[in-house]
């Protein structure tokens, strides 16, 4: 939604900026083939655009670095799309670009999403050398029939081989993705997949319940009855199985869909859940800082054009831009296409709905720091209602979802979002 008035009448006082170090998200909108369940902003068949696109990405990176004053970067995440699909040299170049544009911390977490079908010894070596230190592989399932239904271009065996190659190459921090609640997926198939990832010993696991997104071929197949609708109770059983099995294997379920060996949580994703600052680069990539959320234009071609336009419109000399003016500048003369001012009620809603996804939940002290009031002052009704329904636990430290609440998270999020947006801003801080 484009913004009518750049300056809000009332600004939420505590808006995270770049001081504490930001997260960097780099979007690679290319996939060899489009998976039928996927509604991400990614395309197949536009490979010819890769070199131009990667150049635009480097230009955007440099521009942000300049405008933001080369801030510190704590984490980097190459997502997509399929970052593993583009040539290794392109990855090396983009990494070099952000390293010169930003102050990347020594111990920064640098994750790259890889498709098991793309992994080669050469690519692995290139990534490692360039500075990637965490590999996230979309395995999705260890059942070949399900992999086929999901349109994945690898088999279970290939995934295991790719995983072994990555270990061999020297990746010591790895994450694997699995999907459950799929049409035709049985509990036994799921258990088998969980057992296989456990035996592989990946440091981190993401288990995603399938969401049938409107407009995807898989959704159409289910809607028209070509595939059975996944049973949500069965999906709950699958989730329950994973919760128990992974706990026994020494994983911490630190977020609704994510498990990690102690200390190996995804630091990048934690920044989203904790509503910290992050900058997204590339088409459709989302960012949050200075109390605004914003995103680049969605179309890769439109993005390339917008970044090209940026070169011709350097601001006239004068004092450097600060804070959200930088974002408005990138909207006026750059690829930013969407800006949403985060009002205080919105910020509260987002802080709650994101933070509650974490096992640690929302810390009373964090909430107070940001919003100047305690949780119980603002949400006593919602908290007691959810507690009565067995979805939430609250104590001196803060609030968090119960095991049952994790599976029914939307209900808790909805009630908090509704209450957060209905409550007046905490005037004390204004």
């Amino acid at each position, binding site marked *: 939604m484009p913004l009518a008035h750049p300056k809000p009448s009332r600004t939420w006082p505590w808006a995270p900026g770049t001081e504490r170090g930001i997260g960097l*998200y780099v*979007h690679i909108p290319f996939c060899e083939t489009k998976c039928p369940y996927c509604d*991400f902003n990614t395309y197949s068949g536009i490979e010819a655009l890769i070199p131009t696109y990667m150049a635009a990405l480097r230009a955007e990176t440099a521009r942000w670095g300049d405008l933001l004053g080369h801030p510190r970067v704590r984490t980097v995440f190459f*997502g997509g799309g399929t970052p593993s699909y583009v040539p290794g040299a392109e990855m090396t170049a983009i990494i070099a670009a952000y390293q010169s544009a930003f102050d990347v911390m020594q111990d920064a977490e640098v994750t790259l999403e890889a498709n098991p079908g793309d992994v080669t010894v050469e690519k692995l070596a290139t990534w490692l050398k360039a500075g990637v230190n965490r590999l996230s592989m979309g395995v999705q399932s260890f059942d070949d029939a399900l992999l086929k239904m999901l349109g994945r271009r690898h088999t279970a065996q290939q995934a295991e081989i790719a995983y072994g190659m990555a270990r061999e190459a020297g990746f010591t921090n790895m994450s694997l993705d699995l999907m459950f*609640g799929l049409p035709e997926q049985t509990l036994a198939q799921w258990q088998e997949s969980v057992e296989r990832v456990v035996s592989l010993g990946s440091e981190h696991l993401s288990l*995603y*319940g*399938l*969401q049938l997104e409107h407009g995807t071929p898989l959704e159409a197949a289910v809607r028209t009855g070509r595939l059975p609708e996944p049973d*949500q*109770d069965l*999906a*709950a059983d699958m*989730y329950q199985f994973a919760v128990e099995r992974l706990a026994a294997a020494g994983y911490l379920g630190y977020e*609704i*869909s994510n498990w990690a060996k102690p200390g190996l949580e995804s630091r990048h*994703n934690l920044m*989203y*859940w904790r*509503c910290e600052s*992050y900058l*997204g680069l590339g088409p*459709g*990539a*989302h*960012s*949050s800082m200075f109390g605004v*959320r914003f*995103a680049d234009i969605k179309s890769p071609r439109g993005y390339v054009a917008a970044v090209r336009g940026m070169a011709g419109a350097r601001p006239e000399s004068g004092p450097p831009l600060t804070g959200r003016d930088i974002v408005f500048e990138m909207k006026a003369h750059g690829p930013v296409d969407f800006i*949403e001012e985060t009002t205080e009620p*919105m910020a509260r*809603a*987002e802080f709650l*709905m*994101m933070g509650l996804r974490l096992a640690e939940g929302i810390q009373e002290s964090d909430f107070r720091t940001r919003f100047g009031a305690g949780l119980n002052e603002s949400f006593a009704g919602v908290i007691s209602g959810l507690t009565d*329904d067995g*979805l939430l636990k609250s104590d001196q430290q803060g609030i968090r979802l119960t095991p049952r609440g*994790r*599976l*029914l*998270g*939307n*209900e808790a*999020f*909805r*009630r908090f*979002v*509704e209450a957060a*947006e209905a409550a007046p801003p905490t005037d004390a801080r204004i």
Partner: protein
Amino acid sequence: MKQSHIRNFCIIAHIDHGKSTLADRLIQVTGAVAARDMTEQHLDTMDLERERGITIKAQAIRLAYTAKDGQAYELNLIDTPGHVDFSYEVSRSLQACEGALLLVDATQGIQAQTLANIYLALEHNLTIIPIVNKVDMIAANPEGTAQEIIQAFGFKREEILTASGKTGAGVPEILEEIIARVGPPTGDAGAPLRALIFDSKYDPYKGVMAYVRVQDGAVRESDKVRLMGTGVDADVLEVGYFTPELRKAESLGVGQVGYVATGLKNVRDCRVGDTVTLSARQASAALAGYKPLKPMVFTGLYPVDGESYPALREALEKLQLNDAALQFEPESSAALGFGFRAGFLGLLHMDVVQERLEREFGMNLIATAPSVSYIVELTDGKEVTVDNPSKMPDPQKIGETREPWVNITVITPAKFIGPIMELVTGRRGVYVKMEYLQSTTRPEDGKTPGQNARVLLEYNIPLAEILVDFHDQLKSRTQGYASMDYALAGHQAGDLVKLDVLVNHEPVDALSLVLHRSNAQRQGRELASRLKALIPRQMFEVPIQAAIGGKIIARETIPAMRKDVLAKCYGGDITRKRKLLEKQAEGKKRMKRIGSVEVPQEAFMAVLRLDRD
């Protein structure tokens, strides 16, 4: 037009026997509508009529006809609906006429509404011209049909015409016979104005439009008129006749049928059945109005959006102008808020009213299950009438509950007597009598009536038993051959109980039903299982129970929801997630609440709708 050269007649018949189609031919032959403007069933002017292929409203049209005698005549034709639910339209039309064309489909013979309508016409002393219609059809049996008419109603063979509304055969003869047999109107042109309002409609510019037939005197533009029943005076903005669109005229005189634009904004000032006279020169006595109607079926009508309650009231009042059979009064429900209890002549009528409210007035409605009207004798001797099941008194206070019974007439080929008998007795019906429509011998075999001989069966049966799907059952058990008609036949005591539906232990008033004890178990189970299928799972387990006076007779459980959570965070697009949750929260706010159970509006409506199918 000279009074002696006016002929007023209507077309009556069983449903689908070709009234509107024959009217088309009369319109064409007389040239009342230009060929390029002509449509099939031209007098079915409502969208709803055209979509359903049936006539719902009686519709008048004026025709100019030059007869074989060389003289010009004015014909006022009223096409009437054939379906039982709209028979009130027929009886009001009859009162505006001196003659009636009675059509009988030559492929079907006399049917139940043929009988009902001819009796109505005879009550009004109309000249009846019987016509065997659809003679062009291969399956037509014109001679057999004529014989049936002779035997059933005592007409002479030479009085019976034959025609085809499709080909136009016989139509010129019909016109001549109307001139010859139907008498001119008998009013007194010199007497003070008396015009009977047989229908009306609301026009945003011209106020209430009264559709009248002038009995005595005349009415013209800018006359000051008085409505004798309500005592309200009005200025006539315009008078005119039907083409079938409204066409302005100078005046309406004795016998003429047309409209009077009253400019009245208050719809309650003008009632169908009232008499219009001149304010300055008032008639001494009003015309006999219409017999008050007894609605057969009742339902609660509620606006989906509670704020539309005043709009619904206004819509009902305006619609009532154009549907004299509609009755309503305010009521309220814990589950549905404020609404109206409306009474109808049947389920089709109820359906049509709902659709008209939605289409013509933009209302969005929820209707409760149809109910009949019960008379409850309390233990203290008092009597109350209950047409809303949730208002049924406590069982302990009830001495006796009486339900309406109807007398039904079924016409069918003899071979289906068995299946019909079975259907009727299965629904608590009682046999009254049986008659053969034709003489007891058939020309073919000269002996006993054959399997195809047609009989008239009469039964008494509780009205509630024929409301839902009885007619469909009758049709399917007789391969579509049987037709039926019904008339109220008083109340009788029965073993009637109130079935309550409890969702999470809370009774839902809008779902209560009154029914015979023998049906309670089955209906209770059905309702509970439907609710189970339609109410989405909640955070907690929800029991659904059907109960009679506190005793649970059926039970289902909706298990608690187990999984509802968004999986993946798409990049850092938190806005999209938040908006999704906001939208869902907004949707939840609009849900109906039964205690702490949230039920989407659509599910609630689906439960109520299913109840009728």
